[in-house]
């Protein structure tokens, strides 16, 4: 009796289980994409910050050089 009942319910139950597996695979694809986006954002942030830090160093060096040159040129002016 039980085995006949199981045989009768096999198709819809199996169908439901297959559908559930497909849904879970779809959800897994989406969640792994979300993780990839999060990884990309982190690495983009880090690389941008390191480039901006390099830029900051160069800017500071340029500012100091220009300050020195301004002092030299201004000195020349006051002596005239």
């Amino acid at each position: 009796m039980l085995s006949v009942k199981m045989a009768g319910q096999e198709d819809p139950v199996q169908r439901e289980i297959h559908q559930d597996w497909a849904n879970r695979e779809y959800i897994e694809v989406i969640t792994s994409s979300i993780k990839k986006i999060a990884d990309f954002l982190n690495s983009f942030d880090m690389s941008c910050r390191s480039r901006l830090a390099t830029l900051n160093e160069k800017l500071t060096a340029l500012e100091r050089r220009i300050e020195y040159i301004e002092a030299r040129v201004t000195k020349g002016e006051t002596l005239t």
Partner: protein
Amino acid sequence: MPLVKRRIEPRHLCRGAVPDEVTSELECVTNSTLAAIIKQLGSLSRHAEDIFGELFNEANSFYMRMNNLQERVDLLAVKVTQLDSTVEEVSLQDINMRKAFKSSTIQDQQVVSRTSIPNPVVEMYHRGDKPPPLNILSPYRDDKKDALKFYTDPSYFFMLWREKMLQATEDKRKEKRRQKTSCPAHCDQGRPHTRQAPPRSPLFSSEN
């Protein structure tokens, strides 16, 4: 322990309890998981906007600095063309009298302060529990101190540093007074220790 700056909520997708009156449980779990995924995408986009906003602000500040530098370079270029070495007369006394060039050393101060705190850390701070309202007991104290400061005092380290600095200046003042009273004949020798020697130009040293 490192602090997680940005957390995507909700963390767990399919841990909610299934309601009792639902017959197709698998579909119910799938739907609730998809709803949680949409919330996660919303949280992710908010964090992404915050990240790009921070980077944009920093890049913008560099753009302003670079514009400023460009203007200064243009001014210098004009000035340099106007300089004429034949007209200038440089006397040796004038070179010695002038102060040597010293670049403006700008030190970063208050780097880790309330004003520079990033937004996600502010949100994390506000999500935390407030300290117990011990300040309502302050009027009942005999020594008139703030009762909450005995539990948590944000200005403690600044006060400690201030006390140390005041103590250091007081010690230096006492030392100076002791030097003056103990050796009055050598007070001229003692002066260079407190005053910085003026920088000498290279021309002056080569003459000697």
